């Protein structure tokens, strides 16, 4: 779960990590008021969960209160990368001497947290890692021991940080580590951390991503979830207890198991079709979940065929077939539906589907071939 910049900065403030003075605004009136309080020279930053806000016109520098009002008018209510801008952060203008990149993240390769810093701050770090990989300093952190002071000195030396700032730099990283651990973050990033012309270190931007698996430990943070960041269909999927991701094609997929769901989409693609969604219904396949999942798939008007692919292990295929049939009693549709059942009692399961409107199939290749064929019909 990603936090918005302003939410991340509130978190930073709670941990004594310096951030610019500023507040969140939802209206032009509020922007005006905050700009007045901050003396007129402000930065207006759209609060949407995507990178590249600046390039999309979502970050503007205002030299006067009138300008602040004008920019707020341009940004509030607009869309950035398809997400509505409902709030802007109004920060005081900071004069910058130097920009630094700083982050702590989960590193999959080492299976440990990793501290990264660079003297190339304020730029896209992915880009820096391609163009100047030697300019990114990385230090793996022992998750049981935590950060060692020598590691921080080592990082400071390697990004050519002036000795005058080592103490403040260390303090900020220690506090960032606390945020990372206390909140079960998967990423805490400051890009840039700046040295101001008053010789102070300040987090100009802030990005915090939290581990969804750990939200039970942080109910207050869970309330900060941004509903605009997730497509409504995925939220609906979460509600009915399935894993759902919207795709671009026209073949709806309903599968038990994430790996098998991916494999199903892959074979559809291999055969020249395109899946409309990823949907993992989880273990078993009870009638109610099948019904709700089908409704979710059918809510996409592009869907021209549906492929149900269920492996029956402990839940036998004949039980799964009964579940599917009872779900279909509740749903009216003309869209062709191919059902592939495999595993325990698969022949009995497929027999139950004969003489219904469903199209039974024994192998994945056969099922996908039929579904791709049906979805292609009517196209010329």
């Amino acid at each position: 779960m990603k936090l918005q910049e302003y939410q991340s900065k509130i978190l930073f403030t709670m941990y004594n990590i310096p951030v610019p003075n500023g507040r969140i605004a939802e209206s032009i009136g509020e922007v005006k008021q905050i700009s007045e309080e901050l003396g007129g020279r402000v930065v207006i930053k759209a609060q949407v969960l995507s990178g590249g806000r600046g390039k999309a016109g979502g970050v503007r520098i205002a030299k006067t209160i009138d300008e602040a009002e004008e920019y707020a008018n341009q940004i509030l209510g607009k869309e950035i990368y398809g997400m509505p801008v409902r709030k802007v952060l109004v920060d005081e203008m900071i004069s910058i001497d130097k920009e630094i990149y700083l982050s702590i993240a989960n590193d999959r390769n080492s299976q440990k947290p990793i501290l990264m810093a660079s003297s190339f701050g304020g730029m896209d770090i992915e880009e820096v890692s391609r163009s100047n990989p030697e300019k990114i300093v990385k230090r793996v952190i022992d998750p049981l021991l935590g950060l060692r002071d020598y590691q921080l000195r080592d990082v400071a030396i390697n990004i050519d940080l002036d000795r005058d700032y080592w103490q403040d730099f260390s303090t900020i990283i220690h506090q960032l580590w606390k945020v990372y651990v206390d909140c079960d973050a998967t990423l805490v990033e400051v890009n840039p951390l700046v040295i101001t012309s008053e010789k102070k270190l300040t987090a100009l931007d802030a990005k915090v991503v939290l581990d969804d698996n750990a939200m039970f430990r942080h109910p207050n943070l869970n309330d900060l979830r941004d509903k605009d960041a997730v497509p409504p269909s995925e939220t609906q999927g979460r509600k009915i207890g399935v894993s759902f991701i919207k795709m671009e094609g026209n073949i709806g997929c309903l599968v038990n198991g994430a790996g098998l769901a991916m494999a199903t989409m892959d074979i559809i693609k291999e055969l020249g079709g395109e899946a409309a969604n990823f949907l993992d219904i989880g273990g078993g396949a009870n009638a109610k979940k099948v019904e709700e999942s089908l409704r979710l798939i059918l809510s996409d008007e592009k869907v021209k065929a549906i492929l149900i692919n269920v492996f029956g292990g402990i839940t036998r295929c004949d039980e799964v077939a009964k579940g599917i049939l009872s779900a279909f009693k509740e749903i009216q549709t003309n869209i062709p539906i191919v059902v592939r059942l495999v595993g325990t009692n698969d022949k009995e399961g497929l027999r139950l589907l004969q003489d219904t409107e469903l199209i039974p199939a024994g192998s994945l290749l056969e099922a996908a071939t039929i579904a791709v064929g049906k979805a292609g019909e009517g196209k010329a």
Partner: protein
Amino acid sequence: MSILVNKDTRLLVQGITGNEGLFHTEQMLSYKTNIVAGVTPGKGGDWVLNGKIPVFDSVQSAVDVTGANASVIFVPARFVGDAIFEAVDAEIPLVVCITEGAPIQDMMRVKQYLSSRSTRLIGPNCPGLLTPGEAKVGIIPGNIAFSGNIGVISRSGTLTYEVLYALNQNGMGVSTCVGIGGDPVKGMNFVDCLELFEADARTDAVVMIGEIGGNDEEIAANYISANMTKPVVAFIAGISAPPGKRMGHAGALIEGNSGTAQSKIQALQSIGVKIARYPEEIPGLITV
């Protein structure tokens, strides 16, 4: 022979009195797995499944009394870290964690702790192990595989069953199937299992089922190229997956340009591993 579990495995079930724990204990028992004990803190002294399995308050007490040498964990996600630490401290050689949804930082601490211990961990978020005819440790349906000479390693659940079933339908038996799990931070990986299969006298070929996310398959390709004499066939799920989306499993995520199915397929193909386009194609690619 087989790897990791066999008829001599003395299994302990952590979280035995929960719904999942109890249901799957019954399934494992009916497969004739040698289950010697269960652990649920606060329920020590009880017996479950008609008095067949004694329940203990702690892993150490269960080990002391029953000599358990493997543990399978079904406790809720929030207790996973503690349950693994407890099993490791009781010096159980093999711990298999089925539970999905463990916090990543908990698992990083577990992993770091394991680096100085001799316990092997499988999972979390995995279907466990099956040595057909001998032991089922976890939730893999027992009836879909019979004993044979193919080793199976997989990051997935039902996709693994699909492959086991396809092998079964083609008259191919399995030495051991290891579901290593779909989390980004986990215990044993492809390479650890490949090493065991290479050394296992009964295994003649290995099937590897990978998916998008991370670079474990690429690392496995290096290992295979340098160390494996037995043929390996692979399937990689997620060639149609979009970047930046978590495809069900916590670890199934293309980050930036890394972790794509294409990169994994290319790494494996370049060293001569045959790649199946869909699971049913796997049996036909195995030559032993």
